[in-house]
């Protein structure tokens, strides 16, 4: 059925700062967290974890744990072997020869990182399970460990998986244009080598899982703190050999994920396997320090970037090489994460030559995977740092070099091979510079230097573009991702004047219930409060690809638009019938059909469709429609961020004095939610730049294993953000939306470190590794003095 586009009246609900529908229940303590749930017969699971990063497991004896009065069962890896029909899933093997070693929920022969599960205990309380877990006797034969991904590639490095004969997981390349020739012709070449510090996502809600079996029917219901209930169902049915239709996965309220819950974990498989074996409900809740070992980490890469440019600073080509830590095993999308930045190492700049290479490497560390931005913060950091280096080399203002290179024609087929939908990079930069008072800041900076103030001022820019809205299924197939990038929406207009919206994108803090209500309200002419949004339960919404990669609105939200078109198309037939005219004679505006003489509300048609007393021939009863939307392109948010920092040259302390962010995320449905997403993203980006780093010692012990030593900043440590935006709708979808979940985290590390280096440029400092701790800043200054 071909349908005419709906005339959208943007501005009634879409674009309004509607307060989040979700918040009341969160604030009054009525949220449904997995850890709060209790079902009859529930037992608790605890995992015995390796204290060694690399060790042969020579003996596991669970008998002492079984002797504990409250223990129900205890198993070693060998005891559970027959529960598994397959490995834990990795859905993205980027090359044909990518090495994907087996990854079972418990390690049998060898432990490969501190935290690797080696045995499991089930008891009648969580405390008893943890007590008994200590009683399990495991004998280890410790082996040398390797934690740095570059060192892991060296000849003779300890192997994470002996049978592979190497720690190299894959090497993936992308070459476009005459890169070597452009470098040969270049008048200026700048090079940068950067470290992407390993980060721990630290969602406010730790992971938890509860599985309730219905043994008589072979059915299982799993409540999990997951971003991806649908993907979990598909993949866990394979791990456990449970028919997909017999497995129901529910993500109730989920307290953040930042990518860490875009995964399918050993504990989910264990809870399912134990529930099946024991015939009773099993629950597991992660401790915070346990989570720091057992939940994925982000980043951990070494990057090298080279720019070829002419003497004016016009860049002709970019060459980038990345060595990325996979950790000890491949989790759901581990190998693909650095590749999500593969097309962005030229940033917002127009180049002819482009070459990118990434090598994934196993190390004896917690597996890495998606963390807010996933690949794009890394790419943005490399190019934005390199552009500043180019400006410094030419003695030019970094603003000028950026302007010289901006992409200005849209859509733009970039050298790397994709097409940027839309943008206006100058507009964002102008706004940011204006808000900041760029000239005045430069004057103040010079004055401070002139009078020898030990507290230097630094100004740093990050003019980024990113690709999100994952993703066209065809492209995902071409890069060997093993699922599609579509998503679903269903609209059900109930007879009594309210609407159910079902979405396949399962939120975990983003406010989908509010945003989707706003869109449905505008399209269908209801109040925001008359829309109920359902999600996160595979029995309620069987199809979906869930929430990550800033995709929800750009894919799931657009599916909602097209489902609304189907509702309106069907309702139009009924409306015309009621008004006694032809469908073509009926106009539709925001919930009302108007014919030449009379009009009728969509709500009345919903009732008429339900009674079905008087429908046109061939029209089914009910007013319900679904749509599965596969986006034709990624969406490409962009913007200009500007950080102003003060660096104390005596102590090395960095303080972010001001942070200005101008983002273009396409159409803004809810400015409060958009600002909130940007705030959180910037906070995590500043955290990467200045505070957070997962540090391992040479033996593979995590030295930052709790929230005292792993420095997640909080409100007093961060400035108040000065936000502004430009709105360039994406031409590839009817809502014009792009995506906002990750922009802050993508843009900000570069802005902050550019500012720190700018502050210390006159002192001879050219680079400081993230996080720019006081000690690192002090050492960089000492180094520069020599």
């Amino acid at each position, binding site marked *: 059925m071909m349908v005419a586009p709906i005339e959208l009246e943007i501005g009634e609900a879409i674009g309004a700062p509607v307060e989040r529908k979700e918040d009341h229940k969160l604030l009054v303590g009525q949220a449904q967290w997995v850890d709060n749930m209790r079902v009859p017969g529930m037992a608790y699971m605890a995992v015995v974890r390796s204290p060694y990063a690399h060790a042969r497991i020579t003996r596991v004896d669970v008998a002492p744990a079984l002797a504990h009065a409250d223990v129900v069962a205890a198993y070693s890896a060998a005891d559970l072997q027959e529960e598994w029909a397959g490995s834990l899933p990795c859905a993205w093997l980027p090359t044909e020869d990518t090495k994907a070693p087996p990854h079972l929920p418990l390690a049998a022969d060898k432990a490969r990182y501190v935290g690797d599960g080696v045995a499991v205990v089930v008891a009648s309380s969580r405390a008893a399970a943890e007590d008994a877990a200590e009683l399990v006797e495991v004998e280890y034969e410790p082996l040398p460990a390797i934690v740095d991904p570059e060192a892991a590639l060296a000849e003779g490095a300890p192997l994470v998986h002996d049978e592979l004969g190497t720690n190299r997981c894959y090497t993936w390349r992308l070459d476009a244009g005459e890169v070597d020739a452009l470098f040969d012709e270049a008048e200026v070449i700048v090079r940068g080598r950067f470290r992407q510090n390993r980060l721990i996502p630290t969602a406010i809600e730790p992971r938890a899982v509860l599985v309730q079996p219905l043994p008589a029917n072979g059915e299982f219901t799993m409540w999990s703190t997951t971003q991806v209930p649908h993907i979990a169902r598909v993949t866990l049915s394979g791990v456990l050999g449970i028919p997909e239709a017999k497995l129901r996965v529910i993500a109730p309220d989920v307290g953040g994920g930042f990518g860490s819950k875009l995964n399918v974990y050993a504990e989910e498989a264990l809870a399912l396997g134990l529930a099946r074996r024991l015939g009773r409900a099993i629950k597991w809740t992660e*401790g915070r320090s346990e989570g720091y070992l057992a939940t994925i980490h982000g980043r951990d890469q070494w990057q090298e970037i080279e720019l070829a440019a002419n003497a004016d600073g016009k860049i002709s080509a970019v060459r980038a090489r990345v060595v990325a830590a996979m950790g000890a095993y491949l989790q759901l999308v581990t190998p693909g994460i650095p590749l999500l930045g593969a097309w962005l190492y030229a940033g917002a700049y127009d180049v002819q030559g482009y070459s990118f290479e990434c090598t994934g490497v196993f190390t004896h560390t917690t597996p890495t995977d998606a963390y807010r931005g996933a690949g794009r913060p890394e790419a943005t950091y490399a190019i934005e740092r390199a552009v500043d280096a180019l400006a410094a080399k030419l003695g030019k203002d970094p603003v000028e070099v950026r302007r010289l290179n901006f992409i200005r024609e849209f859509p733009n087929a970039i050298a790397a091979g994709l097409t940027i939908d839309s943008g206006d990079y100058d507009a964002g930069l102008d706004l940011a510079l204006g808000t900041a008072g760029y000239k005045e800041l430069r004057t103040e900076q010079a004055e401070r230097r002139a009078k020898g103030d030990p507290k230097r001022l630094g100004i740093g820019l990050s003019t980024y573009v990113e690709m999100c809205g994952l993703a066209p299924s065809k492209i995902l197939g071409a890069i060997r991702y093993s699922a599609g990038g579509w998503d679903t929406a269903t609209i059900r207009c109930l007879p009594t004047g309210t609407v159910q919206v079902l979405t396949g994108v399962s939120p975990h803090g983003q406010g989908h219930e509010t945003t989707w209500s706003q869109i449905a309200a505008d399209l269908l002419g209801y109040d925001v409060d008359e829309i109920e949004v359902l999600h996160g339960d595979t029995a309620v919404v069987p199809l979906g690809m869930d929430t990550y990669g800033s995709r929800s609105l750009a894919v799931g939200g657009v599916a909602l638009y097209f489902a609304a078109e189907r509702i309106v198309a069907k309702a139009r037939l009924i409306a015309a019938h009621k008004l006694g005219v032809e469908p073509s004679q009926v106009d539709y505006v925001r919930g009302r059909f108007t014919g030449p003489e009379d009009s009728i509300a969509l709500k009345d048609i919903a009732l008429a469709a339900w009674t079905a007393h008087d429908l046109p021939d061939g029209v089914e009863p009910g007013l319900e429609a679904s749509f599965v939307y596969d986006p034709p392109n990624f969406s490409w948010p962009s913007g200009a961020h500007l950080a102003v920092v003060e660096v104390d040259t005596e102590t090395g302390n960095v303080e972010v004095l001001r942070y200005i962010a101008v983002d273009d995320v396409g159409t803004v449905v809810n400015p409060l939610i958009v600002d909130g997403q940007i705030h959180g993203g910037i906070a995590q980006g500043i955290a990467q730049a200045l505070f957070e780093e997962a540090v391992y010692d040479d033996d593979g012990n995590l030295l930052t294993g709790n929230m005292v*030593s792993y*420095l997640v900043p909080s409100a007093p440590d961060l400035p108040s953000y000065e936000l502004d935006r430009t709105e360039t709708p994406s031409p590839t979808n009817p809502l014009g939306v792009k995506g906002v979940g990750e922009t802050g985290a993508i843009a900000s590390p570069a802005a902050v470190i550019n500012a720190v280096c700018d502050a210390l440029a006159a002192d001879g400092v050219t680079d400081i590794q993230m996080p720019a701790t*006081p*000690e690192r800043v002090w050492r960089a200054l000492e180094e520069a003095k020599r």
Partner: protein
Amino acid sequence: MIPAPFDYEVAESVEHAVELLGGREDAKLLAGGHSLLPVLRLRFARPALLVDIGRIEALSYVRDAGDRIAIGALTRHHDVVGAALLQEHCPLVPYAAGLIGDPQVRHRGTIGGSLAHGDPAGDLPAVLLALDGEVDVVGPEGTRTIAAAELFRGPFETALGPQEVMTEVRVPKLTGDHGWSYLKFRRRSMDWATVGVVAVVKGNGSIEEAAVGLVSMGATPLRARATEQALLAGESDPAALADDGTDPPSDTNGSAEYRRHLVRVLVRRALEEARPG
């Protein structure tokens, strides 16, 4: 993140607490719990019995004691911050207490717990040391007074016996001739000090008394004795000696080398700030 099993008793009075401590081996006092509970949850400590003194209200007070201010050991950091007597006579103490942790920590944690825990990274131990304060402890043999200089023995180790309860902390009243400063250098607002520096200086024109306390520069809170002597001798750069005799740790917040540098910067700044008049 769940402590190993332990028994729990509520003490009705100091004497009751002493008695309960004596009844069981491996018993521990519980005050605000903000140092002890994290240790229990990580299972670094496994006491068999916790004796909760958190409800002995008689141990929560701030009183004028002549040339000193007396603070009950169970006074919460938050109440120390707000105590008018301390604000008037020894504002260094409430200022430093106000920099501890975050509001939650300050509402639970107690001054006695802070001192008895003996954490070389704690703020108040170095403050007490620089002020030459003292504490009273009650044990099976009665009450004794321990001077700050004798209190701190090693990392998480104090002069208190296993059956002793700290009851009172006393700090001197500062006068118009005193200047003071507390500089706490930390990565995040709620963190322990990477390095902390307490300076208390007395003098009208020339310096008569000088005390410099150091946080996180060794196994216990320390005094920067070389700096103090150089100050009294009128030497030109006393702060340059601030790391003399220290043995700073190396951890993810900073290497020993960096801490040695940092303490010299902070001592210089603290002395500038503390200079009376």
